[in-house]
C-alpha cells in the first residue's frame, strides 16, 4: 500500500490578489520523496511554495499537508515543516553561529553545539561563524539560510531555488544533502532553475506554466528546462 502523501494538492490555484498567477496545480509528495517545481520566471513556483508553507491562502482547490488543511498558526505544523524562501532578513546583532544556535534551540534540539558545528562545516561557514550577517557575502548569507533548515528537526523541507548564489561545489554538496534527507525519510519540495541539480537529485518535476501543469520524469523535465 502506498504511503499517505505528505502533500496532496488538487486544482490548487494561487495568487496574490484575486488573480491566479498560474494554471491550477495538482501534485502529490510522499514521505522520503523529492519533487521539483520547474517553470520560467514568474510561472508561480514560489507562490505555490508559499501556499504549502501556509504563508498564502489558496484561491481555489485543495491543499493538504500531513493530511490536513495547511494552518501555519499550528506549532505542530511549524515543527515539522522547514522552509527556505528568498528572505534576506537577520537580527543585526547576532552572528552566523548565534542565528543557527537560536534556530536549533527554538526547535528543542538538545545537542545544539554539535549540530550547529556540523552544519557550519557542511555549508562552509566555520570561518565566518563569529561574523555578523551584514558582513557576509550574498552567497554566504544564502548558505546560512540553508544551514538553518538543517539544524532543526523536519519532516518536510520546502526550498525556493536553493541553488541561487551558490558556487558549483556547494550545489553538488546541496544535492548530496538533499538525497540524504530523502533517504532518511524527509520529503523535499523545491523550486529550481538548475537542470544540473534536478539531474543530481534524480527527482520528478512538476512543470508549471500559464495554461497547464504536468508531472514529468527527470529526463523529460530537464529537456523542458533546457529547451
Amino acid at each position: 500500500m502506498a504511503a499517505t502523501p505528505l502533500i496532496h494538492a488538487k486544482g490548487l490555484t494561487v495568487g496574490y490578489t484575486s488573480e491566479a498567477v498560474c494554471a491550477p496545480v495538482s501534485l502529490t509528495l510522499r514521505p522520503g520523496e523529492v519533487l521539483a517545481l520547474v517553470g520560467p520566471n514568474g510561472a508561480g513556483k514560489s507562490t505555490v511554495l508559499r501556499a504549502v508553507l501556509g504563508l498564502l491562502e489558496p484561491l481555489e482547490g485543495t491543499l493538504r499537508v500531513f493530511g490536513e488543511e495547511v494552518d501555519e498558526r499550528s506549532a505542530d505544523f511549524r515543527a515539522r515543516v522547514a522552509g527556505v524562501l528568498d528572505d534576506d532578513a537577520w537580527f543585526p546583532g547576532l552572528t552566523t553561529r548565534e542565528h543557527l544556535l537560536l534556530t536549533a534551540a527554538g526547535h528543542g534540539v538538545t545537542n545544539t553545539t554539535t549540530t550547529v558545528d556540523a552544519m557550519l562545516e557542511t555549508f562552509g561557514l566555520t570561518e565566518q561563524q563569529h561574523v555578523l550577517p551584514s558582513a557576509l557575502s550574498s552567497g554566504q548569507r544564502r548558505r546560512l539560510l540553508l544551514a538553518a533548515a538543517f539544524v532543526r528537526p523536519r519532516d518536510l523541507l520546502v526550498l525556493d531555488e536553493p541553488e541561487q548564489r551558490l558556487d558549483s561545489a556547494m550545489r553538488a554538496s546541496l544535492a548530496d544533502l538533499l538525497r540524504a534527507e530523502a533517504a532518511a525519510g524527509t520529503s523535499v519540495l523545491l523550486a529550481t532553475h538548475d537542470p544540473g541539480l534536478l539531474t543530481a537529485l534524480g527527482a520528478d518535476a512538476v512543470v508549471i506554466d500559464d495554461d497547464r501543469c504536468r508531472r514529468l520524469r527527470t529526463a523529460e523535465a530537464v529537456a523542458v528546462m533546457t529547451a
Partner: protein
Amino acid sequence: MTLQHDAERIPTGRQVRHLTDGIQNARAGRGLGSVLSDVWYAVVTVGLCTAFVTGIAQSLRDAAPDAGETTVALTGELPGALVAMAALGALLSLAGRLGPVGLGGGGAAWWLPMPIDRRGLLRPTVVRWPLVAAATGLVLVPLLVTMVGGTGSVGLVLRWAAFGAAVFGAAVAGAEVAQVHPRGSRWVAAAGEALLLVTALAFAAIALLGLATDGWALGAGWWAAVPLVLLAVAGTVVAERRTPELSGARLRAQGSLGDRAQVAVLSLDLRELGHALSASTGRARRRSVRLRAGGPRRAIVLADLMLLVRSPRPLVQIVVATLFAVAAGKVALTSGGLALYGVWLLTGFWAASSAAGGARQADMAPVLDRLLPLSARDARLVRGVVPLLAAVVWAVPTFAVHASRTGETGWLLVAPAWALVVAAAAVRAAYRPAPRWTASTVSSPMGGVPPTGGMFKGLDVALVGTLPTAVAAFLGGMPDALPNIQHLWALTVAAVLAAASGRRRKRT
C-alpha cells in the same frame, strides 16, 4: 552527526525573545546602566512635553483674541475637541493600515517559523502600540484643544491630557483586537476615515453657521478618563490573548509595512512614507475599466482617475482638507494673517497630493510611462491633470468662503492660481528623488539619516508660487491688482517647473 531533539524542551516565545535580546544587548553594550539611563530619559522627556504643552496653553490664553473685537467664532473646548477627534480618526486609519501588530525583519524570518508560542513572543509588540498611542494622545490632544480653542489653563491641559491618552490608547487597543479578523484592519481604517470625515464636517459646519461654542465644556474631571483607561487595558489584554489567531503571513506583511514606515519616518523620507502607507497587504477588490482609445494623454488621465476612485481614502482626504481650510478662518490661532495662509498652503498641498497617486505610482515604476509615446516632460504634465481637479475642488470653496467672510471678492479670484500651483507642487513632490543612502549620513537624535535634500520638494513650489497671496495675508487685505499678479506669478512658476521637469536626474 545525529540531530537530537525533545519536544518538551521547546522554549517559550518569551524565552526566545529574551535570549535574542540578551545576546543583542550584550553585543551593543546595553546593561543595567543604559536601561536606567533610558528610564531617566523617558521621565525627563515626559516632563518637558508636559511643561511645553502647559506653557503653550498658558501663552495662548494670554494671547487669545477678544471675541468682541474679531470675527473669531470658534473658542472654548468644543472646536479643539473636534480637531482632536479628527486626529483620532487619522490615528485609527494609520493603525488599520499598518497593522498595528506585526513582526518585521529578523523576527519575521527567524522567530515566526519556530514552534514556539506566539503569544509570549509578541506580547511586547501588542503592549507597545497602545502605549505609544496613549503617549501621543497625552501630548497632542491638550495641545490641539488649547491651540484651536484659544483657551488654556493647567487644569484644562491635565484633564485633556488624561482623556487624550485614554482615548488614543483604547482606540489602538481596539484596532489590535479587530486585527484578528481577516477584514478587521480594513474596517478599522475605514472607521478612522469616517470619523475623520464626520468630525471635519462638524467642525466646518459649526464654523460656517457661526454657532457659539463657548458654553460647552467638559463637565467631568480628569477621573472621568479612568473607565477609558480600563477599556484600553482590557482591549490590550484581549488583543494579547488573541495573538495566536494572527497568521504568520499577516504578521510578516504588517511588520514589513511597519518597518518601511518606521525607516521612512526616521530618515525623514516623506516619499517612502507615502509609498509605505499607500501599500496594500491584503486582498483588495479591484475595479477595472476598459480604456477607450483616445491617445496616451487620455489613457494617463483615465488611469489616474481610476486610481483616485479605487479607494475612498484620497477622496476623504480631499474633503477633509477642504473642510479644515474653510473653517480655519474661524479659529483663534488661524483667523487671519500668515497663520491662515499657512493653513491654506498645507491643506491645499494635502488635497492635491491625495490625488497624485498616479504620479507616485509612475515614479515607483517608470516603465509604465516609458511604454507610452510621450516624452518624460509631457507625461509629467499630464500626470498633473487629476491633482489639478482635486486642487480646484479644494480652492474654490476655501477662497469663496474667505471672500464672503471678508467681503473682498479678490480672494475668490486667486483660487485658480492656487489650484495650479498646489497641483504643480503635488506632482513635483510625487517625483521627489529617493534619499541617497550611499552618501554620508547626517547625525540626528534618531541616529544617522540620509541627506534628504528632496524632503521639501513640492512644498517649496507651493510656497514660492503663492507668495503674492502671502503678502496679501500679511497685509490683512486683498489689493485690487493682487489677483492678477498672483495669476501671472503662478503661471510663471508653473511654466518654469514644466520646462525643468523631465530632465534626467543627475546620478550621484
